[in-house]
């Protein structure tokens, strides 16, 4: 289990339409642990239906042990976590926060780093740029946004990257040209992308076509748990039966029942939450990025942070 710190919302700032920044401090005022560029934390949000745990990238300066900064975009039609942070969260409130982990680390031996952000994907990219500047590494930043007004944190990235920042304003018809960006790069270049799914797919497809080895193309791959049918889970070890409503993840429902289950990313990427399925009377709906097609076909494994059953009841080894 990830250690959890009790934190206070010390400040909220609206940095762009629909994007809000939060400063978090340890509730007891103690110094916060350092972290590496690309790290995320997990916020426990006290929603009316129960605690929802959402991961957010850290955007601040890791050397600042007094606060952690995150920037949250309001996700319309989502499960309510980001809406809660926009509408209800206020300075002085307390939250349970799981300590940083990094599933999007920099390759420290790269000769040059190409950082690419689409929209709110700027958050881990900013933290990488800051670390790379501090270490005196060779890097460049490409930041694409809907329109100038939505370019959250652009000034901060600009202050760090200077003329190594290139902006793409989609309202002016500008977009990242992956062909041009990835072609002819010298050996030892690594590229990193955080952005919407179509952008991630184009990045990998074009990079691969241009001959980039997979381990030099890095993307932050998180998915939010998609809603689905209500179903129940039987926990084999305790015999407990847990109901999972349409808008909660299976992991959240298990936790709400007072059972602690392993997790790290809560976004289907890390593999930590994997559970063995002992019995299922309906199909499994896999939404993760972790299990191979082969393992999925076996029907014996599930990642409860994002995946679920299509109604009925499943029994897991927990």
């Amino acid at each position: 289990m990830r250690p959890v710190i009790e934190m206070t919302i010390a400040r909220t700032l609206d940095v762009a339409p629909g994007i809000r920044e939060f400063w978090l401090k340890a509730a007891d005022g103690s110094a916060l642990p350092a972290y590496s560029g690309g790290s995320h934390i997990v916020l426990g949000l006290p929603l009316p239906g129960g605690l929802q745990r959402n991961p957010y990238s850290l955007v601040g300066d890791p050397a600042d042990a007094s606060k952690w900064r995150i920037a949250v975009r309001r996700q319309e039609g989502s499960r309510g976590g980001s809406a809660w942070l926009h509408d209800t969260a206020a300075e002085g409130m307390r939250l349970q926060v799981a300590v940083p982990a990094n599933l999007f680390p920099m390759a420290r031996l790269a000769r040059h780093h190409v950082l690419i952000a689409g929209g709110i994907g700027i958050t881990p990219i900013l933290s990488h740029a800051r670390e790379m500047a501090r270490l005196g590494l060779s890097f460049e930043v490409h930041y694409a946004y809907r329109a100038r007004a939505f370019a959250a944190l652009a000034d901060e990235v600009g202050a760090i990257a200077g003329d190594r920042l290139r902006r793409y304003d989609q309202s002016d018809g500008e977009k990242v040209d992956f062909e041009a960006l990835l072609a002819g790069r010298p050996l030892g270049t690594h590229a990193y992308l955080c952005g919407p799914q179509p952008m991630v797919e184009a990045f990998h497809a074009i990079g691969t076509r241009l001959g980039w080895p997979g381990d030099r193309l890095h993307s932050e791959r998180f998915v939010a748990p998609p809603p689905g049918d209500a179903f129940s889970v039987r926990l084999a070890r305790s015999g407990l039966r847990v109901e999972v409503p349409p808008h909660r993840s299976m992991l959240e429902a298990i936790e709400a029942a007072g059972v602690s289950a392993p997790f790290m990313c809560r976004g289907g990427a890390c593999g930590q939450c994997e559970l063995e399925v002992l019995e299922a009377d309906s199909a499994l709906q896999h939404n993760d990025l972790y299990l191979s097609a082969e393992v999925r076909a076996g029907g014996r494994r599930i990642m409860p942070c994002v995946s679920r059953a299509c109604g009925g009841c499943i029994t897991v080894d927990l």
Partner: protein
Amino acid sequence: MNIRFRDETFRGDYSYRNSDATVRRFPFPFGLDEYMYSVNIERHNGGPAGSVYEFAFDIDEHYVAECRDRAITLERDPGRCVSLPHMIDAEWDVLELIMTSLAHDYPDHFGLQCDGARWTWTNRPLGIEQAFVFGDAATLPCPPFEYITRQTQGDFVIMDQRDGDLWADAGMITSQADWSMSFDTGMSFKEWHGPVPRAHEIGVFDRALKYLLMLQLGQPVRRLNWTMTVNPRLDTAPETYPEWGPDRASVRLDNVPDKVHLRVELQALFRLPRSNGVLFSIRCYLASVGDLARYPRWAKRLHRVLRDLPQDLAEYKGLVRYRPTVLEWLSRLDDGAPVAPGTHPE
């Protein structure tokens, strides 16, 4: 807690000795009569008061002598401390982790004052008071990783995490049982553990690697490993084999209890915050067969484990040559009566 540090040597006249209290807390690794290689990883977040598991970095009566022995080894072979340039963040991570742990766990012996990036470190046993700027290596007498590991018992390797593997890109290795840093710098996790017989067959390293890649901040883990050493010698690296290898032929029935030592490594792994690297600490404990034989449980169990140890593992651990002599000595203390499971002395 006030530790009385012994004035002793790990070479030459080998004046190393354990006090009764130190033997009692020895991390005896055999809970059952039969030993099998396994990864047996558990949490390293504290243990019973007074035990070697109580704190992240255990300090005992051998602290000063061990630091002195490390200095001698480094003087002769500076290559035992290596760190590749991209490990500088990880070096500071380790310095911070060790200094904050020691100052917190052993306030009588160590102190740390932090005023922003201006730190002052106090090490009373070694008589050190050092003011420096955290993050500025020029303000320390040597690089941060070397600086702090010269003042800590045990060997250290820092692994960089990339391409789904862990790479041993920095290390301070002066008391390693059967491998050496110059041999291992830059190696991947699997290459590095390559020579252990049987472990690959049972897939333990694949599983261990997968587990370690997901090791989380503030959730260190540990395991024990063991071998045997003739004479209480820390520096048994391949490079100095001519100095200690021949000792294996010096074991006789009458000198077994003093000369032959069980060598237990408490290995711990910590996720590092700034670098996202992993620190691997290898804390070595030595107890002579005579020390251990004071407790009948341990004497009998050691006898049975050594007796039944498969030949390939005995070869890997380098104890083939003197095993029969040790067994002969121990057999006189083993009446064959059952010994209840557990590693405790009495």
